[in-house]
């Protein structure tokens, strides 16, 4: 079995046992994923105390939804990371003083993020693949990387990024797209 597939099989086993009331599997799920999940949360919210709050929310949601988890949704690791990102960005948004954003239903748009589920194949990268991705990241023009980071880690919209970088909306969309395409090509090259 491939490492990623084996890891996924173990995760699914965890969720099944969790759903049947086995508490040790909650600890198991936590121990397998807490570090990458917490790291992503901390990167987004930037504060350890708040990051721990979000970490608790994410695993509470995972424990609640374990019984309904559909394996066809993709890897458990990616599911946890997606919840981590969406809850962290919810936290950032509630911190920002933008009444119109808080009032709209976009507040919870991140909970779904239909497009944002990573592929199974990317949850584990080999050393060689990592080096290729790393080179691609390093090779991105800084402004493209910054625009992608503001989108992914700060959850800013195209318009908000355009305001922040003082660039036209179309330019920002192009920068983000070109940056992601370059990373994609590097992934393809690495057969990830």
């Amino acid at each position, binding site marked *: 079995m491939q490492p990623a597939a084996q890891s996924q099989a173990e995760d699914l086993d965890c969720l099944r046992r969790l759903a049947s009331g086995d*508490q040790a599997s909650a600890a198991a799920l936590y121990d397998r994923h*807490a570090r990458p999940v917490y790291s992503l949360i*901390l990167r987004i919210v930037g504060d350890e105390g708040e990051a721990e709050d979000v970490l608790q929310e994410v695993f509470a949601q995972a424990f609640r939804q374990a019984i309904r988890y559909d394996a066809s949704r993709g890897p458990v690791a990616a599911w946890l990371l997606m919840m981590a*990102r969406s809850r962290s960005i919810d936290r950032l948004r509630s911190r920002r003083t933008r009444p119109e954003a808080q009032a709209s239903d976009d507040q919870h*748009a991140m909970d779904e993020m239909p497009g944002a589920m990573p592929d199974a194949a990317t949850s584990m990268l080999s050393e060689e693949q990592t080096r290729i991705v790393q080179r691609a990241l390093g090779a991105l023009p800084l402004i493209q990387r910054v625009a992608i980071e503001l989108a992914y880690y*700060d959850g800013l919209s195209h318009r908000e990024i355009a305001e922040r970088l003082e660039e036209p909306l179309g330019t920002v969309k192009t920068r983000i797209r070109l940056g992601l395409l370059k990373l994609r090509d590097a992934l393809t090259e690495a057969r*990830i």
Partner: protein
Amino acid sequence: MSALHDELKANAAGYVLGILDAGERREFEAHLAECGECAAEVASLRPVIGVLATAVPQVTPRAEARARVLGQVIPSLGESREFASQRGIRWLPLAAAVAVAAGAAIYAARVHQQVVDLQAQLVQAQSATSVLAAPDLARIDLQGQIVAPDARARALWSRTRGLVFSAANLPPLPAGKVYQVWVVTEQAPVSAGLLVPDVSGGGTAYYMTPQDIGPPVAVAVTLEPAGGVPAPTGDRYLVGTPTPGV
């Protein structure tokens, strides 16, 4: 290809990143259903998101966080616990713990390998992002000087988080020369770092600057010998003073 298609396709990356607003998302999803080209682009961009999720500095949460997370699960599973023990699967926790300890170690090692090298690459971009979000952000627009009247640049500086510098229309570098960026204080110019523009004369860079320097009265770019110099010696190509209140 229609203009509408091009406009919608420009949102494909934003869709994958989950940053479209509700209206844009609905519109794009409707388009996706009937546009193979956009659907292919979305499918091809998704793996990139997985890389972004794990390419952050890896930090282990405190042990207290684990206790808190697992403390919450006990009441919520209280009812089914009795059920589980009646079915005679009490042995499961121990067996599971052994299996999981082995699995977790392999997993941790793999994730570790995956992120360690990426961290170094991302530190620079993360620092640049943090400058933009700094509470003490100062903006300094630079104008081209006599030797490069068309050149222009913008510096975003935070005492604690460093300097993001972006220049355009700089003349090509003569052999053996490099541009050097200076934060000028009342005491002395402090070197921020070197800048090598691309073929179009543009360049963006991030520099850490010393936190203990005096308030900047200007940011300047000079032409210096390759490798840079401790104090400016060459022609000034760009100079700007802080914009008040930004």
